[in-house]
């Protein structure tokens, strides 16, 4: 606690970097996941599943430093971390986005078509709103794991909260490591609650009827 209080402005700076490195990949990854879930035809689902499953399994540090060989980026710095985090978001959120759209009741879709809605109207006014509970559930999982994995970026020179782990270990200050753990957990929790509230605000009709959406907890990845 003492260490935390003595260094809180330093920690706040690292937290700001941590947020800036996590938010972009979550937003871009989420949009790409929804797009992919919509455009990939059924027969290409198994190969997509295989590729995303393989990327999901790759240790983050190995992916960070393997990207330069493929993309020609620099080894040190945020670019590889941003790309890798975006890929991880897609590997977890693509599946939940597919599930979310699959859960839209068929009756709602056929009724809207019968009412003369165009495919665009159908997507914007019927399918997307009805898929929101599943999409938010997937986004919550992806956000928590992104905030957690981002800390490994410290190893390749991104000074975020993960730096507290490296520095705390080298200087043998357990409080420093624990401060990092707590800070990351607090940020993850804050995002989780905000997304839950956002989901509630976007689906006012759900408060009338109780319905639960299964969360794919097995796709949580932390390191």
């Amino acid at each position, binding site marked *: 606690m003492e260490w935390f209080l003595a260094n809180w402005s330093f920690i706040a700076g690292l937290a700001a970097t941590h947020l800036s490195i996590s938010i972009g990949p979550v937003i871009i990854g989420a949009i790409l996941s929804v797009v992919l879930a919509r455009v990939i035809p059924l027969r290409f689902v198994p190969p997509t599943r295989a590729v995303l*499953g*393989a990327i*999901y*399994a*790759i*240790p*983050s*540090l*190995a*992916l960070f*430093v*393997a990207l*330069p*060989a*493929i*993309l*020609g*980026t620099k*080894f*040190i710095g945020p670019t590889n971390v941003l790309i890798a985090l975006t890929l991880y978001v897609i590997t977890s959120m693509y599946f939940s986005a597919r599930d979310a759209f699959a859960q839209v009741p068929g009756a709602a879709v056929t009724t809207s078509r019968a009412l003369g809605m165009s495919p665009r109207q159908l997507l914007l006014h019927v399918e997307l709103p009805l898929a929101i509970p599943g999409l938010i559930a997937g986004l919550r*999982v992806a956000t*928590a*794991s992104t905030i*957690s*994995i981002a*800390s*490994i970026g410290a*190893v*390749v020179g991104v000074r975020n909260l*993960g730096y*507290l*782990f*490296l520095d*705390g*270990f080298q200087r*043998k200050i*357990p409080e420093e*490591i*624990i401060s*990092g*753990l707590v800070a*990351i*957990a607090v940020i*993850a*929790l804050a995002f989780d609650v905000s997304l839950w509230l956002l989901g509630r605000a976007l689906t006012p009709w759900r408060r009338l009827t109780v319905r639960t959406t299964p969360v794919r*907890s*097995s796709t*949580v*990845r*932390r*390191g």
Partner: protein
Amino acid sequence: MGNVGDLGAFGAWLSDGANWTGRYGLLNLIVEHLALTALSLLIAALIAIPVGLFIGHTGRGEIFVVGLGSLSRAIPTMGLLFALVLLLGVEFRELSVLLALSTIALPPLIAGAYSGVTTIPPSIRDSATAQGMTTWQLVRHVEVPLASPSLIGGLRIAFIQVVSTVVLAPLVGLGGLGFGIIQGLALRNYAQVTVSSLVIIVITITGERLIGFWQHRTKARLTPLDKLENP
């Protein structure tokens, strides 16, 4: 391909025998990497599987499983590894790292065993009991076989978590394939970094696919039962 010019550097690095042998040679690091992963999964499985089966069988301590799951989701494995190794002591580094990695593997393994048992249809357990099976027989011949696909699924997640953390072991003073990445980054030897990361990627995906295949096989063996249950 971005750094095509570097392909020669990779080839040169790989064909230099000095990079393959010795304490920090590629061969030694591969063995160390696999041993750390397998041993920590084994230790975790010995604890987690009985605990998960017990909670699933008795229904006692379900809150514990749920709590453990959501707690572990918010904690980065990197911080957990560093904190545990520092607190357990750097004198017995190997043991500390093994214990830290096992801790990381516990939640998915417990969850896999637990959910495998709880999703068994009550009618199957009831008929086993009605045939006069003892508790031990029920666990041994009904619950464990039926829970095995979910159990192996938990092992798959635990494997991914542990492997991605093993890569960080050199940062706490051990070896493993992450060593080539950490040393290579420090010395700006990017051929070494790239080769190490590619070896890690190949090993990880192979391991994950093998466990996935095992899970698939186990599930396929149980499919006739599934059909009996929901024709």
